[in-house]
């Protein structure tokens, strides 16, 4: 088995405005994201040889993008892997390029959630009995409850740590022009917000957002013909288990074993042995604040049960030791399901290139970053981890 490291490069990316885009259709957002990526890579529609598109609820089949983009008689595949749908496009495209089948591939992720009339996600298939009244915040909240119980953390104290995650994300997102919820919040605001699923309150939950993002991938040895500051794919991990943790009594509800496995795959390919030291930026899938906390432990940044100490100490703020979700993450940037995985790469890509829109958001010397996209819930996770690195 070979590593995927340094075989594929990202040479262009785009991201539409995220938000409640009442005045934009899915097509509008797809066009905005893809044409930004075309311009960024310095190429056009005629250069694209194949497309992977990801959407969870907003379209089916390759025609959902060939129509708006006028793509003509090329292979287009729609993929879906829950909320990990966006990064699944990059994973598939990467392997197609590495196999030597294509030289230039377009990845698109999008979601149009706000036309549904629902405050939450549209219901997919759920079991007519066992799936009744199952909500995403509820499932993550159960992990928070158990985490506090296991480590002897007073729930109010635990909530405060989760609040710090939200405060940090809103601080970062408020500084990104494309983010959905561009507003700073205080710990007091987070703590006093309505409870959605105890112990998670409104500000522990990500936005419900419209948006699209895109990437153009090519062979690493061709990347220089597009630009000097291309970004290399260093490793990709995806790990899905039997997904029975919510029923299985041997699942402890405080670890994310699938995420641990996905990180191990990605680190091995990238040659990372000390992630906390080697990585310069993390984009974590913070659908709920507790997800970010548990992921920090699952990917080896914090020892088990110790994430609270780092979060309380400010380790992951914009000016901290290892910045996390510098664009605001799902919490503040928003979570259009199919687009999020690509957006998580977009931020790392821009940070590596030194091209964050505002200087105060730009980190120094970003060489290696991690983007984490995930679907599911504790005990039933579908995590994808992509390591991105500077060219050369």
């Amino acid at each position, binding site marked *: 088995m070979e590593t995927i490291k340094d075989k594929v490069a990202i040479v262009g990316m785009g991201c539409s405005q995220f938000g409640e885009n009442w005045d934009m259709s899915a097509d509008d957002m797809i066009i905005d994201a893809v044409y930004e990526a075309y311009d960024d890579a310095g190429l056009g529609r005629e250069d694209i040889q194949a497309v992977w598109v990801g959407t969870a609820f907003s379209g089916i089949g390759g025609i959902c993008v060939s129509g708006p983009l006028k793509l003509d008689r090329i292979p287009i595949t729609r993929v879906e892997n829950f909320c990990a749908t966006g990064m699944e496009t990059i994973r598939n495209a990467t392997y197609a390029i590495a196999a030597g089948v294509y030289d230039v591939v377009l990845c698109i992720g999008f979601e149009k959630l706000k036309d549904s009339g629902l405050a939450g996600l549209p*219901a997919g298939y759920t079991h007519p009995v066992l799936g009744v009244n199952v909500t995403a*915040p509820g499932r993550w909240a159960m992990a928070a409850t158990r985490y506090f119980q296991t480590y002897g953390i007073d729930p109010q104290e635990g909530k405060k740590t989760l609040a710090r995650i939200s405060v940090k994300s809103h601080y970062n997102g408020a500084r990104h022009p494309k983010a959905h919820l561009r507003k700073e919040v205080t710990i007091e605001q987070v703590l006093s917000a309505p409870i959605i*699923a105890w112990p998670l309150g409104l500000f522990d939950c990500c936005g419900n957002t419209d948006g699209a993002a895109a990437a153009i991938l090519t062979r690493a040895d061709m990347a220089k013909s597009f630009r000097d500051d291309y970004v290399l794919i260093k490793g990709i991990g995806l790990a899905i288990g039997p997904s029975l943790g*919510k029923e299985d009594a*041997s699942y402890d509800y405080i670890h994310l074993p699938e995420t641990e496995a996905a990180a191990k795959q990605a680190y091995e390919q990238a040659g990372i042995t000390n992630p906390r030291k080697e990585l310069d930026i993390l984009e974590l899938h913070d659908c709920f604040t507790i997800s970010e906390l548990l992921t920090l432990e699952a990917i080896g940044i914090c020892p088990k049960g110790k994430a609270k100490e780092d979060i309380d100490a400010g380790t992951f703020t914009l000016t901290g030791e290892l910045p996390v979700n510098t664009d605001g993450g799902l919490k503040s940037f928003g979570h259009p399901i199919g687009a999020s995985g690509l957006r998580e790469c977009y931020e790392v890509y821009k940070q590596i290139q030194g091209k964050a829109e505002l200087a105060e958001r730009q980190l120094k010397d970003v060489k290696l970053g991690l983007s984490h996209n995930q679907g599911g819930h504790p005990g039933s996770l579908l995590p994808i981890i992509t390591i991105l690195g500077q060219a050369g």
Partner: protein
Amino acid sequence: MKTGIVSYGAYIPIYRLKRDEIARAWSRGSMGGERSVANYDEDSVTMAVEAVIDCLKDSDRQGVDGLYFASTTPPYREKQSASLIALAADLRRQIFTADFTDSLRSGTMALRAALDAVNSGSGKRVMVVAADGRMGQPQSDYEQNFGDGSAALLIGDENIACEIVGSYCHTDDILDTWRTESDTFTRNWEDRFILSEGYARNTREAISGIMAKYNLTPSDITKAVFYAPDARRHSETAKALGFDPKTQVQYPMFATVGNTGAAFALMMLVAALEEAKAGDRILFANYGDGAEAYILQVTEQIERVRDRRGIKRHLASMINLSTYEKYLRFRRLIPLESQAREQANAFPPVAWREREQLISFHGSRCKCCGRTFHPMQRVCIYCGAKDEYEGVRLSDRQGILYTYTVDNLALSSDPPTIVSKVHLEDPLAGEENHKVGVYCQMTDRDVDKVKPEMPVEMTFRKMHDSGGMHTYYWKCRPPREP
């Protein structure tokens, strides 16, 4: 051949509503005391399952040969309920089940049919279960007077705790209380008429009839247990028939439970049996479309069936329903934000195909590694064995709450939803400290008292009514012990 009651059980919902609170809502007089109120996820079927399981405590469920369900409020007009109760109680498939409905007297009609079945030899042990949750028109006396509950009697010809030594029956036809096929609330004709010509005339006729038939006088009776529509008529009847209300009359529970319709007489009988001693002679009478009466003789075996939650322990375990509005909500008498997301959630083929795990609440026990999983798995998650499993009942196992959330987002008639991960005991796993995980909702709970590691048990409940059908499953709850 002797025939009688082998075991008994009962159930009273945990919620009680003070009649003063109902009176407050309508600015009218209160009858005083409180009534039981079925939780929003309870109906006559779920209450019946509770009583049956209570009745079958420490006995082999495979040994039941029939189940008769009596109620004026079965969940379906067309489709049996006894079959569902038998499945949830995990009785065997080769049994006879029947519903006895429409009459307030259906509880004792089912009892009579069960006696006939055992006497004829068509079954050795037949379960009779009566459950009712009638609704009075809002603001009416009945709304205050009615209560919800159930009782179960196992009838058989061996190990008899209370022999049934005599019976009497007559039929009458009168429109006193009724519901047409489209009525939600019980209707009634004017009190003076229905109580004198309906209840009082028929009940006295039946009790006098059986006393004469067996040459008994009131002093031969240890305890008189009989139906009455309300407290006043109950004591009037006792007086008229010559029973000493202090020593000879079974307390009718109007102040604590209310009139539980078809289940009422049987619930009073269970309460009497809880206190009965060997040698006691019990007069038992019921009214509705005529009346019937029984003479019962308590045996030494009564001591064998003491460990039941029955009436006494269920009465003692209660939560005060804080407002009348909650009652309206529970009974869906106020239009609620529709359960829009449930619309797609009722599929008879799924409920049928998975009835063993959903209704009988079996887990799959792997024959190779011995560990049990719910929902049932064809491929063992622990050892990988394929199709090497057997179904094992989980509904009577004790457990703890491993983790939970108080979910305000999930739609419910009693928000918030306590989503729970339960760890049930797994004694079949042998030495290993293995648990069986169950992902479910918690019911009958005080939200402020929910804590990780608290003890829980399982209870059969209705999940939703979407699509014009009732969908049932199991939930966890704090143990119903005072």
